[in-house]
């Protein structure tokens, strides 16, 4: 625990250390974001969760067998453990009739438990202890360097960057396959595409990304790096390639911001990265252009306002039609407000104690009334509804019909230009 507090230990170039740690976290987070995108769109988020736990025994066995963290043997062990997880989960479903989440719950907790026990058996000095398993040691990674062209580069960064490059290359090379498999696995299988191979590849990629992240953020928080940026990106865009790019960027940004925040607050970088990822997701959920909470609230208010305007204009139009001008008067404060607004925008003109439509207001009003009556006529023809039940649905639908649809509805009618109540349907304005 206290290891995080020794971060500020001077003597080593502090800025360089931080930069390397952030760069390492960023490449790792980008790898996870890329893999996570595919996991999320294929509804395999929990498989990612399971794998990130289950790689532990693979890593532990590899370390016990003499592999070094971040080395090829450890990668191999982790991929093997990931494959074992998935194989066991699917085996339990096929042979034992277990639901997938229940099966995964059995398998990954068991494997993780075995992993923790194995880690307890590891000899001291193997860079593997319970704390590292749970939250990594990002701050220490830059001290373990290898020399590349005369420069000391942290081993973890080299491993992370290699993994990122490999994953990007693999995904780009198989892009069409990935898209097809993600959105229509059955269709892809029917088309003879190697769906099983693609899935296995994705699982292996998850394992590799997890192992690359393991030293930095530990097993459990990898889940956040896999799923959070992808889930946030999915709210921001609907195209898969953009989603992948956004997820990678969000992951990398969260890695840097989280690392700095953790340093300022003297706490775990891995934990803080997960928190920042959560904040990014929350921001996306609120601010996303189409589906964000803010956007939906705005569109709800705008619709309510439009309905209020159109209803008022239509009311005045009907009052003029029937000659009963007093019917145009607003009755509630809300209606009065709408009338004042329409007066301000020049759609209504004050006429003594009443109101009448300006040319612009008339155009809009006629289209609303036209929508209303066309819809009554359509329902009267195509639905088994009593005559006196046509008005309420039309009151609702009139605000959603566009010009093209009105034309279609009119074309559907006989040449009568009247609604089922015998009132005239005004022409398109």
């Amino acid at each position, binding site marked *: 625990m206290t290891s995080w507090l020794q971060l500020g230990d001077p003597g080593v170039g502090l800025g360089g250390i931080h930069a390397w740690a952030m760069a390492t976290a960023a490449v790792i987070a980008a790898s996870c974001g890329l893999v996570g995108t595919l996991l999320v769109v294929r509804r395999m988020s929990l498989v990612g969760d399971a794998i990130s736990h289950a790689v532990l025994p693979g890593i532990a066995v590899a370390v016990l067998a003499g592999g070094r963290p971040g080395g090829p043997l450890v990668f191999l062990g982790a991929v093997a453990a990931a494959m074992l997880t998935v194989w066991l989960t699917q085996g339990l479903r096929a042979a034992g009739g277990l639901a997938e989440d229940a099966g995964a719950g059995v398998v990954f907790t068991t494997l993780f438990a075995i992993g923790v026990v194995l880690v307890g058996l590891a000899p001291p000095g193997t860079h593997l202890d319970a704390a590292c398993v749970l939250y990594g040691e990002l701050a220490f990674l830059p001290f373990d360097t290898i020399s590349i062209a005369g420069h000391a580069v942290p081993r973890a960064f080299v491993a992370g960057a290699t993994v990122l490059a490999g994953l990007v290359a693999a995904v780009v090379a198989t892009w069409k396959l990935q898209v097809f498999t993600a959105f229509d696995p059955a269709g892809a299988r029917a088309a003879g595409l190697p769906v099983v191979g693609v899935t296995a590849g994705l699982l292996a990629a998850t394992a590799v990304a997890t192992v690359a992240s393991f030293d930095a953020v530990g097993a459990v928080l990898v889940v956040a790096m896999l799923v959070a940026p992808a889930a946030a990106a999915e709210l921001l865009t609907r195209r898969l390639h953009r989603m992948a790019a956004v997820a990678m960027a969000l992951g990398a940004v969260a890695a840097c911001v989280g690392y700095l925040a953790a340093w300022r607050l003297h706490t775990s970088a891995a934990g803080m990265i997960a928190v920042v990822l959560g904040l990014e997701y929350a921001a996306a959920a609120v601010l996303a252009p189409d589906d964000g909470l803010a956007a939906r609230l705005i569109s709800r208010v705008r619709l309510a306002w439009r309905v209020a305007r159109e209803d008022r204009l239509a009311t005045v139009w009907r009052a003029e039609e029937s000659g009963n001008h007093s019917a145009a008067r607003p009755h509630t404060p809300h209606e009065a407000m709408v009338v004042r607004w329409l007066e301000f925008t020049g759609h209504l003109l004050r006429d003594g104690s009443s109101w009448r439509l300006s040319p612009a207001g008339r155009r809009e009003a006629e289209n609303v009334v036209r929508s209303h009556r066309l819809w009554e006529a359509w329902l009267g023809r195509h639905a088994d509804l009593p005559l006196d039940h046509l008005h309420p649905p039309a009151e609702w639908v009139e605000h*959603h019909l566009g010009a093209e649809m009105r034309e279609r509805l009119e074309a*559907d009618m006989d040449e009568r230009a009247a609604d089922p109540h015998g009132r005239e349907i005004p022409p398109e304005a």
Partner: protein
Amino acid sequence: MTPPTRPLVELHDVTVAYGRRPVVWNVDLVIDEPCLFGIIGPNGAGKSTLLKAALGLVPLVGGEVRFFGEPLGRVRSRVGYVPQRETVDWDFPVNVMDVVLMGTYSRLGWFRRPGDRERRLARECLDRVGLADVAGRQIGRLSGGQQQRVFLARALAQQADIYFLDEPMAGVDVRSQERIFHVLDDLKAAGSLVVVVHHDLRTAAEWFDRVALVDRRVVAAGRTSETLTPENLQRTYAGHVDVLDDLAQAIAARGRTP
């Protein structure tokens, strides 16, 4: 029991949406006497949705539903329900008897367990659908037709006055179908209303007294012979829903159609 002035089931202007997207539009149906009533229409027409909306299982965006002139909450115990067979996990650890006893739960209320009286009733209901000899069997070890009859027996154990059945003949062998229809006929003879969501036109004409043809809206409703006309069927199975689909899209997006 029921004054003739109160229709058994009334749906007025019922519109049902998933999320904001309407799937059944402006349904107006009144059933005022016990009969076998079929809700007929193509796949994806919203028949099951309509049934679920009537039972309060999916929210209405507009309209109202009444049973015996009252809101459903007051008369729930008089309304029986047979859901679609695929909606449950047949590997669930209960046996046939357990499932039928579930029909008695709402009368038992909280915390009380079924006793001898309920067991006797459940056994009778199983007998009526011809499954008395498999009462102790795990439900997954039944054929599709048997499973459907278990569901029917559970509804019988509700001892209701109105029964709603959602696609009870889907994936059911011919013998079970016959058996189910006969049980439904008996219910009608005993004065119950039986409303069935159904997809097979041939058996519909044979068994139902009244039908409603549904495709996103009620195209026609009434006596079977008068309603199952070629013209109505043409209107039900071939048409005009593209307008509703475009409109549903616009409403879901809080915007306008083109």
